[in-house]
């Protein structure tokens, strides 16, 4: 038999995670030497049709980045699931819903209306919005349906492994490929990154005191940020303590706090709630009014704590209106 066949697909994600595959650089040549990439829309002309032509489970592995937002994406990831032995969710959107998951704080229709009817530059006297089917004279044009709720990949298909990150890193992707080639994969469902939170590898951990007492949270633009000291000790919200490591402290090195893109750890069901719990313990008051004041110094706590994980949070987003 020939080299293992590999596919890469890009659903509702920014595509950065496919750039990361390109960032494998010389390793890309190694990988492409060891496998046959038979499907990679951004870089190659193999077509959707070619995928359908494949036998079931003919692909050794497919890397899918992006969440599921449209009917078309659901259709294709299901097709790929059928065609591939392994499915790896690549990046925050596929694993957690990602930033696009923040849309779950709104209803689908609100997003459409804002973009196509309300923004100041739009000239739309007829109040048109994109339709699944449009008749133009004798012609009929289709668009995929826009779902009300953003879903992570594993809400739509069975996922074997997860490589989180916004974006993921070439190192993690290379390791994943190597694990597959050398048949050294961990148990199904594993997240192929660190098992501990970012603090474990954070260069600032030792500056974090055993007790942090915060009476007012600071925003990154409000103060000069000490480049060596734990952000939380500067009253700046950093999600590093609730976020899986493996990102190489990209943000920390740039003197910016963690925003949680690698998602929570194995035993945590809700990244935002867990972070909330830890952060609240640092709020230095036992008085209700004072606590409210401290909480008010956090701008948009929900948007911040669920930055990447809203779609996969326990509540998945804003509840519906009462019937």
């Amino acid at each position, binding site marked *: 038999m020939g080299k293992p066949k590999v596919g890469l697909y890009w659903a509702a994600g920014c595509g950065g995670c496919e750039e990361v595959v390109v960032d494998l650089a010389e390793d890309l040549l190694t990988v492409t030497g060891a496998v046959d990439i038979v499907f990679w829309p951004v870089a190659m002309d193999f077509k959707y049709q070619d995928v359908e032509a494949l036998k079931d489970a003919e692909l050794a592995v497919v890397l899918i980045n992006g969440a599921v937002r449209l009917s078309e994406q659901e259709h294709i990831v299901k097709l790929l699931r059928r065609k591939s032995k392994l499915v790896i969710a690549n990046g925050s959107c596929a694993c957690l819903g990602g930033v696009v998951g923040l849309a779950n704080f709104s209803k689908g229709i609100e997003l459409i209306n804002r973009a196509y009817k309300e923004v100041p530059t739009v000239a739309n006297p007829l109040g048109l919005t994109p339709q699944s089917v449009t008749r133009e004279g004798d012609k009929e044009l289709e668009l995929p349906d826009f779902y009300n709720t953003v879903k992570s990949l594993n809400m739509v298909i069975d996922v074997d492994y997860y490589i989180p990150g916004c974006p993921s890193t070439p190192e993690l992707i290379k390791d994943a490929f190597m694990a597959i080639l050398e048949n050294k994969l961990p148990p199904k469902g594993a997240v192929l990154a660190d098992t501990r939170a970012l603090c474990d590898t954070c260069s600032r951990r030792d500056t974090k005191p055993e007790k942090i007492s915060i009476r007012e949270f600071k925003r990154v633009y409000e103060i000069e940020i000490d480049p060596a000291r734990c952000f939380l000790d500067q009253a700046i919200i950093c999600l590093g303590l609730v976020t899986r490591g493996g990102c190489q402290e990209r943000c920390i090195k740039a003197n910016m706090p963690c925003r949680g893109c690698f998602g929570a750890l194995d035993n*945590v069901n809700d990244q935002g709630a*867990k972070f909330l719990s830890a952060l609240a313990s640092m709020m230095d008051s036992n008085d209700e009014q004072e606590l409210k004041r401290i909480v008010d110094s956090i701008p948009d706590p929900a948007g911040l704590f669920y930055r990447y994980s809203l779609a996969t949070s326990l509540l998945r987003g804003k509840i519906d209106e009462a019937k």
Partner: protein
Amino acid sequence: MAEQIGVYICECGPNIKDAMNIDDVADFAQQLDGVIFARIFRLLCSQEGKELIAKDVHEQGLTRVVIAACSPKEHEHTFRKVISDAGLNPYMLQIVNIREQCSWVIKDKGRATDLAKSMIKAAVYRVAHHAALETKEIEAQPDVLVVGAGITGMSAALTLAQKQRKVYLVERSPCLGGKVVRYEEVFPNLECAPCMLEPALDEVLHHERIEVLTLSEINEVLGFYGNFIVKVTKKSRLVDMQACIGCRACIEPCPVEVSDEYNESLAKRKAIYFPFAGALPNAPAIDKEHCLRFKSQECDLCQKACQFAAINYEETDQVRELNVGAIVVATGFDLFDVKNASQFGYGKIENVYTSLEFERLLSSTGHTGGEILKKDGQVPEKVALIHCVGSRSKKFHEHCSGVCCSYLVKFAHLLKQKFPEVSIVDIYSDFCLPGKQTQKSFNDFSKEQGVEFVRVNDTNDLVISEVDGKISVKYPVSGAQDDKSLEKITAGLRDLSVDMVVRLNDTNDLAINEVDGKISFKYAGSGAQDDKSLEKGTAGLRDLSVDMVVLAPAIVGAVDAQVLAQMLDLTTDENGFFNEEHSKLSPVSTTTEGIFIVGCAQGPQDIAGSVAQGQAAAGKILSRLVPGEKLTLDPCTAEVDEDLCSGCKTCIGVCIYNAVCYDEEKKRAAVNEALCRGCGVCVATCPSAAITGKHFTDEQILQEVKGVLED
């Protein structure tokens, strides 16, 4: 192997049976995953009930048990013991409270039945995730360290010093007895304090299982209940206590004179000194700070004077490492520093004394040998006693020291005894005379002196009656009130008044100055005063003249309590007293298990209270730290999974018991099971879900949540 869950439903006589369709409930339970049977029984807590369960555990090979009955508060322990005796781990049990929280409160039978079902379902879900827990035991050291050899520490030490147990009594000063031993007579019955203490001092000094370490201080405390390691520095006395007979020959020759802190700095002492006459142990100490030899001068006068070669300049400080199971903190109190309240003129004006200074004036072991004289050697004619100095005031300390009124009464009494002619002005805002005898002694002293404080504050004299549908309160008049409601009082009692009683709202509003050799007072008068000379007085400032003042400053925690608090992981309140674990239920325990706070270290106390607390702490220790026995630890503690812990330290800050610590080597958190109380705060806080709360794990709780909500 598959789980074998047995469900028992107690009828609890009619209590449960009649409130729901108990058979439905049993049928329902029978269907649940892992349940091999659901039995209904008349009364599970009965002997037969217990035997039934035990029998099933054996014969049916139950692996887990669910008991739907009364509150776990009633019988969780009972049933744990039952299954554990039957060979099952006691934690493989879940109690369902279908009595207090179902049958007794849900009146609708159908609803009660449904609720019972979902409660049992939740318990079955939960119990399936229970883990066998082992009760751990740790070696415990029965010996005890007592810090402070005042009357409190000594009584704790004496209570503790039983067979197979050693007590280390650490005292910073050269002598035992703390403050009390320096009082002459103590209220209410004017016992002679030194005489009262003498036997105790003697017993402590010669007790075979009490090791007294004078001139010693704690520098470091490590470990936890049952296993503390304490570093103590024992400063050199430079006098061999065995050789010394206390002849005092060495004192006179010493050329150095320094202020005598043991006489409240009212007098001078030498560099080699006895804290006071009769201080025990009966040997002087050399104060290195002032001794010329230690200022690199040649002097050995004391050594020359000693007939017994007791003086040894070579003796050096030593550090002792003590291994003890518990620590009793009896560090006593200090007085509010009146210099911080300039209106009292303390420290600026002669003959203005604090109560402790006055005690030394009264004391036959004091520098005046008990003579109360003004600085000019004259006898005082008019003495003012002032209550609540720096206390019961938002400006300084808000608390009431509780003993000042009593000892001021004592002072008044002793003054009158010594100089019947002296007139006393007692300036107070309220009298606090708690306890069995103090009020009585107050009354007795007053009478015996012919002093009558004209103020009725006995509410037993109240007459409450109904007049025209309103409640009327009649009460005897007080001669000296500024209370508007008492304005219209008859002055009938006034004539009887001999000494003056001036009542102020806050004695901290006083201003005391010196005016041509006399001490002048200014105080806010209150309009209605029980004093002939002030009879027609209207509100405003009054002048009144005395020639000696005794202040009763607030009792506060020892000035350096903070230092010790840090070493012991204790906290102190705004008045410098150590915080107890629970103000009512655990007044001498602290949040650090095995460390107890007694006497004035815990809060203002009189002598009896202090002694009682010392003995209470001793009792708590004796009941748990039994020589030869191990300490058993509740297994329901938190546990850190090092493979998940990122060392973010969030858990450490939330534990008030200091049970979670940070391992600097591994960069991981670790829970000390001996200190953990199993509250689970750290479990809920850990952002990595790396901490498990045994027997209340996330999984167990979530299974229960799932169970109660499932349709």
